[in-house]
C-alpha cells in the first residue's frame, strides 16, 4: 500500500499537495490529524518582516473621512468606464 506522510500548517480551506501525482486516478483515504502543540504563553510573531508602517509614505490624515467611501468609489470608477 502506497502512503505519504506530510506535516502542513492549515491556513485556508485549500491544501495544495504536489506529492499527490503518484496517486492520480486512485481512490485514496484522506485523514487530517491535528498535531499536539506546546502551549504558548503568548503568540509569537515569527515572521522576519513587519508590515507595520510599510505604507507610511502614503499617509495623509486629511483623507481619513474618505475611507468609508472607498468601496463605493471603486464601484463607480469601474462602471463609469463602460
Amino acid at each position, binding site marked *: 500500500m502506497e502512503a505519504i506522510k506530510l506535516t502542513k500548517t492549515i*491556513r*485556508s*480551506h*485549500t491544501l*495544495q499537495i504536489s506529492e499527490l501525482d503518484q496517486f*492520480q*486516478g486512485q481512490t485514496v483515504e484522506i485523514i487530517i490529524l491535528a498535531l499536539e502543540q506546546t502551549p504558548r504563553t*503568548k*503568540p*509569537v*510573531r*515569527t*515572521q522576519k*518582516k*513587519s*508590515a*507595520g*508602517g*510599510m*505604507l*507610511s509614505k*502614503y*499617509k*495623509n*490624515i486629511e*483623507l481619513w473621512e*474618505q*475611507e468609508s467611501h*472607498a*468601496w463605493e*468609489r*471603486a464601484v463607480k*470608477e*469601474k462602471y463609469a468606464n463602460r
Partner: protein
Amino acid sequence: MRIVDTNIIVRYVLRDHEEMYAKAKTLLEEQEIFIPLEVVAEVVYVLEKVYRTERTDIRETLLTLSDYENLSFYEHDLMTESFTFYCDERLDYIDALLCAYKKIKYAEIDSFDKRLNNVLRQITTIDADDS
C-alpha cells in the same frame, strides 16, 4: 474567532496615528486573528482609491501581513494569487479575485465584463482528471 475591521489594518500599515498604530500592532502581531476576504478587499480599495497607493506596494504589504503566524486568512492561496492578477493584469481587485477562483479553484466564471473575460480566457487550469 476574532476578526479585525479594515481600519485596524489600514492604521497599521499606514502608521498615521501613533496611538491607533500601537493598538493595531498589539492586535495584529500578538492576537490570533481571522481576516476575511471582504476585509482584504476593502483594505485594497481604501489604499488604492483613497491613498493612491501603488498596486505593487499594496501587494507587498498585504502579502507580508499574510505571513504573520498569528493571522489566518480565508483561502490564503486564493488571496495570494489574486494579487498576481491585480498587479500584472491591473484588474479591479474583485475581478482579480474571480480570476484567482478560476485558477486555484477551477471555478467557471461568467461575466458580461469583456476585459475580465479576456483575462479569464488566458487562464489555463489543470484538471485533476486530465493526466
